[in-house]
């Protein structure tokens, strides 16, 4: 009775092997499909949390969840969109509850955040001595963040991340028509903001003088 049963042992081993093979397959696929979007997720997370360490936490959570539920990812659809949706839901559950009043913009916070992160994490080869360029980046960032969240969100997803309206509609859980009109209105607001900045620095006269 206590003798090991060779057939049973063999069986166990086959199950283990196939499990492992399956798991490995999953890992490889996950890395190919999902992990490649790490930078995009991290950036979106930074925009949402405005805090590098929260951003990292959020991305980690997102990947953990995504990996666990990777089987439910519909193959052939946009994996990046799927990940963004998970990240956004995580963000809402975890961070937004105790966040500051919506609609209020803390420009000092944005400025500090943008500068601190720019110094350490900037991936572009642009030199920091180019004051004009760095200023403009910051202005655009501020202008974007001055928009109500519902507008800012769709602009980010569309212009920065390049999602289609359908993907965005799915992510923000609104009809495509709503996405369309939010983009339209959001961009109008944004342009007004940018024109303000441009006027301030006097380089907005695209019609009358091409310097």
């Amino acid at each position, binding site marked *: 009775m206590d003798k090991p049963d060779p057939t049973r042992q063999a069986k166990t*081993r086959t199950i*283990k*092997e196939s*499990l*492992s093979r399956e*798991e*490995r397959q999953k*890992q490889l696929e*996950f*890395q190919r499909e999902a*992990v490649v979007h*790490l*930078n*995009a*997720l*991290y*950036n979106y997370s*930074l925009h949402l949390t405005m805090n*590098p360490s929260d951003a*990292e936490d959020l*991305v*980690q959570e997102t*990947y*953990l969840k995504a*990996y666990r539920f990777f089987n439910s990812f519909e193959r052939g659809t946009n994996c990046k969109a799927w990940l963004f949706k998970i990240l956004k839901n995580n963000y809402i559950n975890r961070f937004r509850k105790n966040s500051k009043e919506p609609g209020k913009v803390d420009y000092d916070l944005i400025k500090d955040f943008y500068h601190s*992160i*720019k110094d350490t*994490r*900037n*991936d*572009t080869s642009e030199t920091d001595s180019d004051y004009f360029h760095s200023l*403009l*980046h910051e202005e*655009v*960032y501020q202008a*974007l963040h001055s928009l109500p969240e519902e507008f800012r969100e769709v*602009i980010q997803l*569309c*212009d*920065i991340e390049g999602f*289609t*309206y359908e993907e965005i509609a799915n992510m923000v859980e609104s009809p495509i028509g709503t996405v*369309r*009109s939010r*983009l*339209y209105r959001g*961009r109008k607001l*944004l*342009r007004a903001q*940018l024109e303000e900045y441009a006027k301030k620095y006097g380089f907005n006269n*695209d019609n009358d003088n091409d310097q």
Partner: protein
Amino acid sequence: MNCKKAGVLISACVDGELSLSEERDFLLHLSECSECRGEYEDAKKTKMIIREKIIQFKAPETLMISIMQLTSFNTKEHEESLLYE
């Protein structure tokens, strides 16, 4: 198509998200309305500015490593079990 109708379609056209018939009507209107044409050019410019001026950061290496670990936390165990083959 009047300006009011065209105005709503501007940003969707910039994104290439109009249906064929919408796009046809919209472009027809642009060809005869300089004001909307200006609006359209401005919308295109705004999109470009956002694309170019928002800096994309690279995820910290530590994050990259921890994500890789996270998605392979079972591998060692499985590899060990394979060693007994």
